[in-house]
């Protein structure tokens, strides 16, 4: 294993120290491993809390700031944070207008956030609404399974719901925006290599030179199928087509198109993929209203990418263009 780390057991604590040092505009509670907006709680504003296992940087801590999250809880690598962290985060961002929990649909995340919400309800009057993201079309959605994973849409949702909260809208409306984003967005990912979990010390799976995995998530889980390596042009088709098959995205206000790098893939390759994604969308008659290309939700050092498409509407575009000032996403301010 080759990583720029100290003891694998300290990776999350060490990274939080670095993040704290790099971003004076954030407050880091190292004891609870919660990253807060420096001005939290913002009086009268709905607080937005997210979190999850570490290893997806800049998500979620890097999305804390004006127009996005109020707090993010960091778990161990690929391991949901614990209820205590979420309680601390929720209490710390409660400005009197209630708190939205943004939870990616993984059993661990769902259970821990659920327990946290129960604890908050038992201990305080803070109103908590939870929205779960489950946008990954690689996974069959069925009531008899854990359902689809929450992936790329989470980044877009945190931006859009964050903008709605920043406008001063009430919890129910902010949650409605969040649910709409999740309902209108779908993703699909692929990997060229496995990632290596620091504590495990070696790649989660083997992926020979000429092969790639289609339908991976962001935790180094193997994908749905293994296929021969293909040019970016075909990779774009393999990712975009299942998304288009799952959700009608033609017409209307077009889509917000998001090509995400999984941590080990450089930006030059993401731009190559994005060019091909645009070509596939054009052929399918899907217009693109906004673009996001970069490594915003990683899977440690995995080489690969995901594509997320979100059906845009006038309101979502306005919220997308609204100011955001976080380490990971920043514009309009």
């Amino acid at each position, binding site marked *: 294993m080759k990583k720029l780390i100290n003891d694998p057991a300290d990776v999350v604590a060490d990274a939080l120290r670095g993040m704290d040092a790099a971003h004076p505009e954030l407050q880091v509670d190292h004891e609870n491993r919660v990253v807060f907006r420096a001005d939290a709680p913002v009086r009268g504003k709905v607080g937005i809390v997210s979190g999850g296992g570490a290893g997806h940087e800049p998500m979620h801590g890097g999305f804390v700031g004006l127009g996005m999250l109020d707090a993010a809880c960091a778990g161990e690598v690929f391991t*949901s944070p614990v209820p205590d962290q979420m309680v601390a985060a929720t209490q710390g961002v409660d400005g009197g207008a209630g708190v939205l929990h943004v939870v990616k649909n993984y059993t*661990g995340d769902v259970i*821990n956030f659920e327990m946290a919400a129960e604890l908050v309800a038992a201990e305080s009057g803070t109103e908590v609404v939870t929205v779960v993201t489950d946008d990954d079309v690689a996974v069959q959605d069925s009531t008899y399974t854990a359902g689809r994973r929450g992936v790329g849409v989470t980044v877009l949702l945190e931006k859009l719901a964050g903008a709605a909260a920043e406008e001063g809208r009430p919890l129910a409306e902010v949650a409605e925006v969040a649910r709409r984003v999740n309902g209108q967005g779908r993703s699909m990912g692929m990997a060229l290599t496995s990632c290596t979990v620091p504590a495990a010390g070696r790649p*989660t799976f083997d992926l020979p030179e000429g092969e790639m995995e289609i339908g991976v998530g962001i935790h180094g889980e193997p994908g749905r199928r293994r296929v021969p390596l293909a040019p970016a042009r075909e990779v774009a088709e393999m990712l975009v087509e299942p998304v288009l098959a799952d959700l009608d995205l033609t017409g209307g206000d077009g889509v917000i198109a998001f090509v995400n790098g999984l941590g080990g893939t450089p930006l030059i390759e993401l731009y190559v993929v994005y060019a091909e994604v645009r070509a596939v969308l054009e052929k399918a008659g899907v217009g693109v209203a906004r673009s996001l290309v970069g490594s915003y939700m990683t899977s440690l050092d995995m080489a690969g990418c995901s594509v997320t498409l979100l059906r845009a509407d006038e309101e979502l575009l306005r919220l997308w263009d609204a100011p955001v000032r976080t380490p990971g996403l920043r514009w309009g301010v």
Partner: protein
Amino acid sequence: MSAVGTEQAAAWVQAFAERVAEQRDHLTELDSAIGDADHGTNLDRGMTAALAGLQATPPADAAALLKAVAMTMISKVGGTSGPLYGTFFLRMSTALGDGRPAEVAAAFRAGVDGVVARGKAEPGDKTMVDALLPAAEALTDAVGAGEPLDAALRSAAEAAARGRDAVTASVARKGRASYLGERSAGHVDPGAASAVLLVESAAALAGG
């Protein structure tokens, strides 16, 4: 062994922690195949913290001991297995009573019911429940049939292992392994494997 007191509970937790430490890399390897390569690390971190907690604040009785372990699992592990094992120990602690065999069996069953209530897994979904439920049933049956606790725990451990193995061929329907669809078939479920260690730790103590 006629009743489970503080000493027995402590020995069980200690034995489980040791088995987990010893099997940590193996559990993580199982989780690499159909999950995210952290199950061994998660459990080991939790049980190490639990032992340290017990050392720092010795609990008054077996129920308090199990509750302390539960709270550590819930507040130190995270992921899926942290709150589920935490819930197991928590529910068990409140149902343990005087620790007589029938109470132990009922408490174990309560713990398993807690896991099911929290995780909503059904038998055959290929989770820890597939080891825990048969163990609970075997324990209840054996104790109900008047077998001594030692023997009943051994039956439970065997049932847990059979339950784990029975779902190895199946396609997972809960947890991360479910994302793999058909590819999850043929792999041992990591949580089922650790649950077997839990029951075996009890059986080994009882037998020794």
